[in-house]
């Protein structure tokens, strides 16, 4: 029974993790870079949600549409200003982009520190638990996991079955080929980054419902998202889903049997094991 409960928790946790990873995956797939500020965006959104809920006592889920749209715009602007100038460079592009997002991360973290302080905060709402067939379903976990899966599924459908989504996929698979198909690759890059940051912000809104967040530890979320993406195979969407679920399950189990501190180390150990044993990740795509 305990095992079943751990599995349920793990799957629901994995659902939220999927959302964490997809934003990063999108950016990596289309632009070939890892956004180090990813964790900072998640944290900033989460802290803002905390403030919003404690001030207005409205449901945090109301924030999702406006924040998503605002982040689309902000992400697009950031990409144009900070990252597009680097897109033309050859070899040094990867490293210099890492540096820029590294700098951006600290700007965002400092902003969060100044507005929200350095303490951990979490939302006490949605902590009711439903009991179904003897298993406990925590309302926050269910909401986050379900919404995460829903948004992720919507993203997948958009990418696969709509013209605009397919244009984005095409750009990530072969930028030169995409250009010859008449796709505006510059616009695709901006869209990818904007979407990636919007997804990160949404993940933050949902994450604050389950986990405590704090400004100084924002980069641990970057690492966590990166671990999921790397485990799944960089740029592989289905692999990322599998990796997110795997991570959720393993953390759920380890957290119960070995305690909180061991739980923290799980992502890194999983990553190192995979890097040694199967570097291309769980998924099938290669890059």
């Amino acid at each position: 029974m305990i095992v079943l409960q751990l599995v349920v928790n793990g799957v629901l946790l994995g659902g939220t993790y999927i959302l964490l990873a997809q934003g990063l995956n999108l950016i990596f797939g289309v632009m070939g870079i890892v956004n180090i500020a990813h964790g900072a965006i998640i944290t900033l959104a989460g802290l803002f949600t905390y403030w919003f809920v404690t001030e207005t006592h409205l449901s945090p889920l109301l924030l999702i549409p406006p924040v998503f749209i605002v982040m689309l715009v902000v992400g697009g602007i950031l990409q144009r200003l900070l990252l597009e100038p680097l897109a033309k460079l050859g070899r040094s592009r990867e490293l210099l982009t890492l540096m820029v997002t590294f700098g951006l991360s600290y700007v965002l973290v400092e902003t969060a520190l100044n507005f929200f302080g350095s303490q951990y905060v979490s939302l006490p709402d949605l902590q009711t638990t439903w009991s179904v067939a003897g298993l406990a379903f925590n309302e926050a976990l269910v909401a986050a996991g379900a919404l995460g899966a829903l948004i992720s599924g919507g993203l997948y459908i958009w990418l696969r079955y709509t013209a605009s989504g397919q244009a984005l996929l095409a750009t990530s698979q072969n930028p030169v080929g995409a250009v010859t198909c008449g796709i505006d690759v510059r616009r695709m890059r901006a869209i990818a980054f904007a979407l990636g940051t919007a997804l990160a912000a949404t993940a933050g809104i949902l994450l604050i419902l389950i986990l405590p967040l704090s400004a100084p530890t924002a980069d641990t979320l970057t690492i966590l998202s990166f671990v999921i993406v790397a485990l799944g195979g960089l740029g592989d969407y289905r692999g990322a889903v599998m990796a997110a679920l795997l991570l959720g399950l393993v953390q759920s189990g380890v957290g119960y049997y070995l305690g909180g501190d061991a739980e923290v180390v799980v992502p890194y150990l999983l990553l190192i094991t995979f890097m040694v044993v199967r570097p291309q990740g769980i998924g099938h795509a290669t890059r």
Partner: protein
Amino acid sequence: MGQWLERRLSAPPTTPATAARGPRPLAVAILVAVIAGAGAMPLFTSAYVLQLATDILTFAALAYGWNIISGCTGYLSFGQVSFFGIGAYATSVLVLRAGVPWYLAALIAAAFSGVVAALLGTVMLRLRGIMFALGMLGLARILVVVASDWNYIGAAGGLTLPAELTPIAVYLAMWVTVVGAFALNYFVLHSGWGLSVTGVRDEETAASAIGVPTARIKTAAFIMSALAPAAVGGLVAWNRSFIDPPSAFDPTLDLQVIVFALFGGIGTLWGPALGTLVLVIVGEQFWAYLPDLQLALYGVLVIAVVLAFPGGVVGIANRFGWLRRRPVLAPTTLPSVSRPPQPAPLGDETIIEVRDLTVRFGGLVALNGVSLSVRRGEMVSIIGANGAGKTTLFNAITGFVKPSEGGVFYQGKSVSDIPSYQRARQGIARTFQIPRLMESMTVWENTLLAARYGKRGGDAVEQAAWALHTVKLDALWLEPPSKLSPGQQRRLEMARALALDPTVILLDEVMAGMTRDEQGEIRAVLRHFRELGVAAVAGVEHVISAIADISDRMIVLDRGKKIAEGKPDAVLRDPLVIESYLGKVS
């Protein structure tokens, strides 16, 4: 804006006219005076200035450590603070539990940190650049957790150390550490060995093809970069008389170090020192007014430097002709060659043999049971339509691709267990279809790097000079590859191959994109390959007219299979060959 950036990044690394062996005497004198003056400084200054100077030295040492792995080797590390913390804890434990004197403890801690780097390196340096950067970021986090739970080192409460160090002692110890870290950087940027590090940074694959043991070089650089932060960590722990996990593995230390090194000039000799000096002094004035924005401003500075002047202060100085890097081991003029290589002995044994070679990439069969050989004294051309598997064949012979079935034999022995850099050292040289030249090194240094790993042993300088004379690139010896025409770049690739003193050279489409005159120059070199000491040559080619008359034998591949072999004029008239290129008229 992209073009503007591109121009900034393509500033030539060296001054063409003034290559001289070793540093200028005046520069050395100034450097010695500065170091001695810095050492004697505590005698003349106030406590405040001493503290500021100590801070500058602290960050300079950290920046020099970071510079080696991130700037010189090209593996960006966002977690060098891990070594800082390891050094801090190791020093403290040695002093508290083993009674070791503090300066000795710091040295032992540095050595221990080097060992940790060696172990970490075997896992992490196999990863791509992004993985390594984020892996290091995560490492610092893991270490905080581990340290917080480990009672022997004080767990979350940390360790308290007896206050024993005077400010002057700390200053002098930091001064020694900075001099040491600077010396390491000098070694990496100006020695023959250090050329391998730059080669790995610029073109890791090509470096492997000219004999550089890339894994070992990367690990050595990583170890070197771990020494300074560990020593600094030990000294800082003692100065503060207290360490605990958050302060020992504080990620904002990484941010500051990266900002300073980037601002000064990443991957340069003077960048870390200049950047630290300027930014610590400026910061001192600033932080009084804006204490809450320090991290944000550093972040903005990183972004601004990357977008506006990625070469840092040193990069800007280079544009005015200052602080330019001098080419490594370059004599005042290119020496004429007194001892050219011996002509290759005669004989007809098989140099390279490929037996039933099959290479599959997922579902695609690139090579399907191909068998061929290259014998001593002959030049073999390998032709075929695109997708025939020609480059895959070369990649399998040189070790860049693993065969799915079949074997590759060099001078009678199987090479399947021999890594690519060793095959190069044993005498298999190759050029690349798209020239992979080390862009931040001069023509001379590109060739010298290969010569260092050549079979000939002895004087690499002379071997490199001979190679450049042979391909007639001597006039351009101090130019960067970006200034060469495509034909000249291919000749440089040939010079690199010749510098290895190879037994066999594999040329991958060397004639592509060359003018008739340039083709003529290469043909002249290829006609006399036996006199140059090379036993055999194999060339993959599309420009058949350029190699048909100088080849002894021609092999044709079509969709992974060998379809013809023999004298060139017979092969070129073979109906199967014509059909593979032009298709069938039905």
